[in-house]
């Protein structure tokens, strides 16, 4: 008897539900189609065991790439790190950036006193002791930031650096700042004071130019020259020049940040 009930009533219902279930799943509006979607996470279960045109092509490009990335472009005397307010690595990078930007403008026939400016947030790795490869520079500067040279009035330039504090500043080159009780007290460019009405070159990256980290917030520019060169490409080329000159990279320690009173 029990079996009979199952067969006569229960099963047909199950049957019917299962039959119309797929239609219920995704029928929508009055469109003539049903859409069923899924996303597939591409983990190692999808690894192909056999060689295919794609795996061959990937291998081909991987080999070419590692040949480029593993090229040793310089030697470094010790591991260089980046930290506030001034560090061996941030000093080196801003110096190289300045050299490039200054030369770029001279080649355009424009000579002005200049400084360079980066942001600590954009320096993502250390420079290793010993061999320095292209890949190391990619790790230090992984972002797609391009070098720009901003022409700026002395008064506006002062505004930028006067906002720095001993605890919160950004890396720069050619400039000396003395902090007194955590506030900028004296700012000079290669020992000379900044004149409000003179024009200066600020070599930096488009990220900062476009408002990144609010470093140039409410700062007026006279004009901007876009070099269209990526920061890391510039760094690679400038570092190669150090090697060509027969030198190795050593930590730069100078007076760009002086903190007073010193205890």
């Amino acid at each position, binding site marked *: 008897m029990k079996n009979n009930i199952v067969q006569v009533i229960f*099963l047909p219902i199950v049957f019917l539900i*299962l039959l119309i279930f797929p239609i219920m799943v995704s029928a929508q509006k009055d469109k*003539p189609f049903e859409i*069923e979607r899924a996303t*597939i*996470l*591409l983990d190692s279960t999808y690894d192909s065991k056999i060689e295919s045109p794609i*795996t061959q*092509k990937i291998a081909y490009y991987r080999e070419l790439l590692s040949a480029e990335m593993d090229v040793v472009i310089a030697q470094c005397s010790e591991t260089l790190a980046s930290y506030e307010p001034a560090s061996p690595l941030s000093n080196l990078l801003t110096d190289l950036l300045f050299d490039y930007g200054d030369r770029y403008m001279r080649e355009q026939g424009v000579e002005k006193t200049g400084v360079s400016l980066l942001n600590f947030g954009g320096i993502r790795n250390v420079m290793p002791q010993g061999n320095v490869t292209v890949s190391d520079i990619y790790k230090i500067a992984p972002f797609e930031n391009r070098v720009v040279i901003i022409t700026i009035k002395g008064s506006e330039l002062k505004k930028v650096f006067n906002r720095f504090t001993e605890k919160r500043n950004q890396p720069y080159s050619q400039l000396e700042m003395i902090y007194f009780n955590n506030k900028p007290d004296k700012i000079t460019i290669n020992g000379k004071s900044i004149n409000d009405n003179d024009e200066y070159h600020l070599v930096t990256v488009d990220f900062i130019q476009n408002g990144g980290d609010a470093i140039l917030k409410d700062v007026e520019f006279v004009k901007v020259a876009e070099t269209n060169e990526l920061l890391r490409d510039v760094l690679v080329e400038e570092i190669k020049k150090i090697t060509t000159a027969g030198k190795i990279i050593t930590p730069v320690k100078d007076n760009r940040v002086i903190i007073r009173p010193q205890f």
Partner: protein
Amino acid sequence: MTHYKILLFIAFFCPLLTFGQGKVLTILHTNDTHSQIEPWSDKKMKNVGGYARRDSVIRAAKENETPLLVVDAGDFSQGTPYFNFFGGYAEIEMMNLMGYEVATLGNHEFDNGVDALSRRLQTAQFHIVCANYEFKHKKLSKQVKPYVVLKKDDLKIGVYGLLVDLRGLVDQKTIDSTTYKDPIAVSKEIVPFLRNKKKCDLIICLSHLGFEDNPKWVSDSTLALAVGDIDIVVGGHTHRLLEDKVVNGVQIVQLEYGGMRIGKIDIRRKRK
């Protein structure tokens, strides 16, 4: 007892049979794959993605009887040194091999300028669609079509493309050489045209507008609200995984970043 078992057997397999019926198309889609040719090596990403695995899924789908359409919603360029060293050619070469049929342009496709983009699109064996831009670059304006109509068995599919306003995303030179048109106004013309004039059964928008919840912004959701006759929006740009988003009857899909996943859509004809 035998009756019982047979009935149970039928009850379980009948739905599976009907489920397989009426399947007219499988779409595989990606967006914002950003030159991630090799799997992610990050610890956080746990070794996911990569072209080889994506290719395994596509190849498996090609072996099914159901027609297949592989599409991308833009930003296949930029993100790894592969792009920087090979200028975006490696990505396109391998998208050809994987069997992509249509892609739209993302903002990062313009990273090396319009000349470079046009040069490498010359090597693409798939259609590039973008309906809401005019390009002053002569060759590029021919390479990029507003839409394509594809036929898969007796199914007519209209695929068109949309791209976000590039201002602030690419350099000024590129902005100056392009003219942006409102994506919704463009869609209001192109969708009825594809449906009525081109007699498309299915209309797919490859969108690099992004998905935003805020209705004030032009995005895939405002597009769907304004143009409900689109069947599927394959979106991108905002790197947001949309698991089941239907707005105004429009199915909107999007994956995150760097080709960690591939999306799959099965289309079935409803029985009358």
